[in-house]
């Protein structure tokens, strides 16, 4: 499409010299365009109907008072302007959910990155064998259903029968009611999320580590840098783009926290694990579609803003 003019220029006068060839060229071009669109059409139609339209409709819906009862009677829907957004930000429950979600992201993302980086660095060391086995093991939770994992962890964290408190009992500590205590429930879910997701970052970081040129370490060693200094001054700077990518992807995922509180705490105790996504789901369940759409757009804006912020942070500290 952006072919250099020098290469296309000679063919054009030739085509205008002989009109019958112009027909052939445009005919072929038209046929090629048709072929292209025939291959593109099935995806494009499905995509437009089920993805593009809903993205736009979601925004439009957020300015209306659409409720589940209006689905059969679309004429009763009114445009209410920014009412949903005003209500949203004066809703104590939504503000609580937003704070919970932010705390989860702000604590969870660094925790996951540190764990992922530690695993990747350890596995990248020349001293380690059985690398593939460790890699597969650490990656295992990433491929499994969050719902199933949440069920298992709800059991692990059970105050009486749970494995965690039983292990604590062995060393003489009386473990707390992890998911039943409003100050411990969100931290428990945060640790569980890091446990589940660090394997994904490990794989990404391993690829990044293997791309660091070995002579950089060699030079650092000659300058007398120890292991930690090498990590601090060679590995970390070289890994910055990969770290940025990992932080953005993990942050986007964590902003949508839903399954864990749904299965483990039902958002409680005392709304301490209510997330924005869970709030949206609840409002949807109550039939407040317009309101839920507004909340989901706020979440979307949050996702875009977080990505932009992380890009800036990691870039500027260069």
């Amino acid at each position, binding site marked *: 499409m952006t072919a250099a003019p020098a290469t296309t220029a000679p063919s054009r006068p030739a085509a205008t010299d002989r009109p019958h060839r112009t027909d052939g060229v445009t005919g072929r071009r038209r046929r090629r365009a048709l072929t292209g669109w025939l291959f593109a059409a099935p995806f494009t139609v499905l995509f437009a109907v089920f*993805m593009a339209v809903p993205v736009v409709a*979601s925004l439009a819906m957020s300015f209306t008072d659409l409720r589940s009862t209006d689905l059969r009677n679309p004429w009763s829907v009114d445009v209410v302007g920014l009412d949903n957004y005003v209500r949203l930000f004066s809703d104590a429950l939504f503000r609580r959910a937003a704070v919970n979600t932010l705390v989860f992201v702000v604590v969870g993302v660094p925790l996951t990155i540190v764990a992922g980086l530690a695993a990747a660095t350890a596995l990248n060391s020349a001293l380690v064998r059985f690398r593939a086995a460790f890699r597969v093991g650490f990656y295992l939770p990433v491929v499994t259903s969050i719902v199933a994992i949440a069920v298992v962890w*709800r059991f692990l964290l059970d105050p009486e029968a749970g494995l965690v408190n039983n292990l604590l009992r062995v060393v003489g500590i009386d473990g707390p009611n992890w998911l039943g205590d409003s100050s411990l429930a969100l931290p428990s879910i945060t640790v569980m999320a890091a446990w589940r997701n660090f394997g994904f970052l490990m794989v*990404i970081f391993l690829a990044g580590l293997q791309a660091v040129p070995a002579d950089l370490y060699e030079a650092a060693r000659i300058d007398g840098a120890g292991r930690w200094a090498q990590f601090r001054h060679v590995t970390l700077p070289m890994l910055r783009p990969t770290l940025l990518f990992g932080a953005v992807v993990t942050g986007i995922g964590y902003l*949508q926290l839903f399954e864990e509180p*749904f299965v483990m705490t039902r958002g409680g105790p005392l709304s301490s694990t209510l997330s924005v996504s869970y709030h949206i789901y609840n409002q949807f369940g109550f039939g407040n579609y317009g309101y839920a759409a507004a909340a989901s757009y706020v979440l979307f804006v949050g996702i875009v803003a977080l990505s932009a912020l992380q890009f800036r942070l990691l870039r500027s500290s260069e």
Partner: protein
Amino acid sequence: MSTMDTPVRGRDRAARIALYAVLVAGLLVVVGPFVWMLLSSVKPEAEIRQVPPTWLPETVTLEHYRELFSRLNFPRYFGNSLVVAVLTTAGNLVFCSALGYALAKLRFPGRRVLFAFVLGTLMVPGMVTFVPQFVLVSNMGLVNSYAGLVLPFLAGPFGVFLMRQYLLSIPDDIIEAARIDGAGEWRVFWSVVLPLCRPALATLGILTFLASWNNFLWPLVVATTEDRYTLPVALALYSVGQNRIDFGLMLAGAVVVVLPVVVVFLVLQRHFLRGIATTGLK
């Protein structure tokens, strides 16, 4: 042992031992819960709740599995999950490779805009679209149907991205040669392009199947009666529906959800890890 032949410096040995200690501890923490889940699912309920706990089951019982598959209709949920995942995967393989091929190898007006558009929605989360998607599906009369469960996921932007990137690495000459031999466009695609894409299709197929198998929010919203539940929906709703949950039953349910995926992962891990390394996406 190589350590016997070449003397290893004491510091290296200490570092190696420390590294292994950390890695093995990490592995225990990561894999331990899965082993615990599997072992507990064959213990009687009383033994699961026993303090202090037993590690290996004293009594091995399949009662929880029997209950899942007779009283709780888990075969149905398993079947639903399978049908939805297979249809979603098949759809993505066909539609994404067709569009990926068109974007990489065919010149037609609007393809750049189309690609930018598809790429732009790669970041849009399901949470943003599910309300209008539900309104749409409900207006189509497809709530609580397999079509309703599958349609919104048949054409995913990730697959297009993956297939286009892979196809760009295939030389045009091969395709051009087939055209000169007189093969029609469809034939070129079907018997030349697709076989060349086998590795990318394998990666896309595995990742799509997995995403569909583990998908939760959409089936939770669309499957309104029990006979359309997928496995994660059934597991979640049963586990939150009771005040005092039956641990054995729920752990057996978790095993049924997790085990097929773990087996597939262990067999095909090469594809999983390559898919991530090449695209940087789940």
